[in-house]
């Protein structure tokens, strides 16, 4: 069995939610939640947007460009923020990388 390696998020990574991570809106509390084993995170509105764009097809660069256009914000800064956020979630096991382009 091969040893797992830490996922490093880069511009070309195609991020997606890990299979065991579930993003859902909780109507009882009126909150977005990210559920994982023994963990519940409360993503802020931007994090929800990033995770919804992280479909395993778009690259981190695509996600950043999308948000940069939508919010008319500098791409460099958005890309840095998005990468840091996804890295933090990857380190917790919430975010994985897709192997390649698959619909």
């Amino acid at each position, binding site marked *: 069995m091969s040893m*797992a390696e*830490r996922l490093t998020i880069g511009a070309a990574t195609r991020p997606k939610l890990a299979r*065991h991570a579930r993003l859902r809106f909780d109507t*009882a509390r009126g909150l977005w939640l990210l559920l994982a084993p*023994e963990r519940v995170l409360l993503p802020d509105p931007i994090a929800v947007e990033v995770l919804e764009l992280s479909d395993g097809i778009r690259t981190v660069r695509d996600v950043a460009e999308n948000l940069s256009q939508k919010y008319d914000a500098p791409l460099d800064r958005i890309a840095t923020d998005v990468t840091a956020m996804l890295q933090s979630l990857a*380190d917790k096991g919430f975010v994985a990388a897709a192997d390649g382009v698959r619909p």
Partner: protein
Amino acid sequence: MSETAAAERPAASLSPEAGRTHGLPVAVLAELTHRCPLQCPYCSNPLELDRPKDELSTAEWQRVLGEMADLGVLQVHFSGGEPVVRRDLGDLVRRASEVGLYSNLITSAVGLTRDRVFALADAGLAHVQISFQASDAALANRIGGYRHGHAQKHLAAGWVREAGLALTVNAVMHRQNLHELPQIVDMAVTLGAQRLEVANVQYYGWALKNRAALMPTRAQVAECDRVVEEARERFRGVLTIDYVTPDYYADRPKTCMGGWGRQVFNISPSGKVLPCHAAETITGLHFDSVRDHSLGWIWEHSPALNRYRGTDWMPAPCRSCAHKDEDFGGCRCQAFALTGDAAATDPACALSPRHAAIFRTAEVEAETGTTRFIYRNPTGGTAEA
């Protein structure tokens, strides 16, 4: 968009609102059965096990799962005993998925087959937690009191990963296996687990009965701290380690269950709603059953749940303590087990008048206690040969 870097906030908004003793429940431990092929001497089930004929039926659990979702529960942990002995486990997982619950399976993995793992994944199971008793097979099988258990666990862990499910390795630690912790960490990584629970034994029920055989030395505890810290650093981004420290040697008590009846609860095989799996060890409390009331009614009105909620019930020294809203006075079951009074300060707390005595008891038992187990079974336990 400066908030982007703050991807998540601590789960503060899941906590009860200010001035409330309890909020919407977040997670439920569903003990489907007390039947189990293993006989671990630290089993968290009560000494008096529920009988199979008293277990909730499939239809009853399906109703209760729906009530959980309505009540705001987010995660359900299917546990036991050994939950896979219930043939309807797949139906219950499917029902949990239908009502939007995130489902976890907490299993010994004994009795699990590859087909069953894939069927559970298909039913919407998200995560499997497999208990390991040690890394060495002979030691593991001796602790579990089951000859081929360890090899079966390794096979099952492989199927879990093959099915694409998240895997947690749960390792209950005590004096007789703490020397293997570094190998257990490596085993968890090799098995492809994303998460490892290093859970030092908590002494209630069966574990209290076996305390002298399980209590670690202070040197072992210090080494355990060091190994966990080193492994967390070495496997950052690969393996998350959740660490339960042994509280007899602690200064501050654990915030048991996040507070009595505050955000989580347990349902026993026969349907009793408990603030934790050990609560039935406290005599004199009557726990309401899902057979008699809706979950919503029980969560709000059950006298047993309301008994130790919040801080108003506290006597001294907890009542005037600066930490009372953080640790809620520690663990009620431990207070009852060690003082005979469930409202007493948990003796794990340095402010308890009993603290020095239990600290000393732990040290003496760790140095001079027996190594022979009393195995957990429905007949009250069997001494190791």
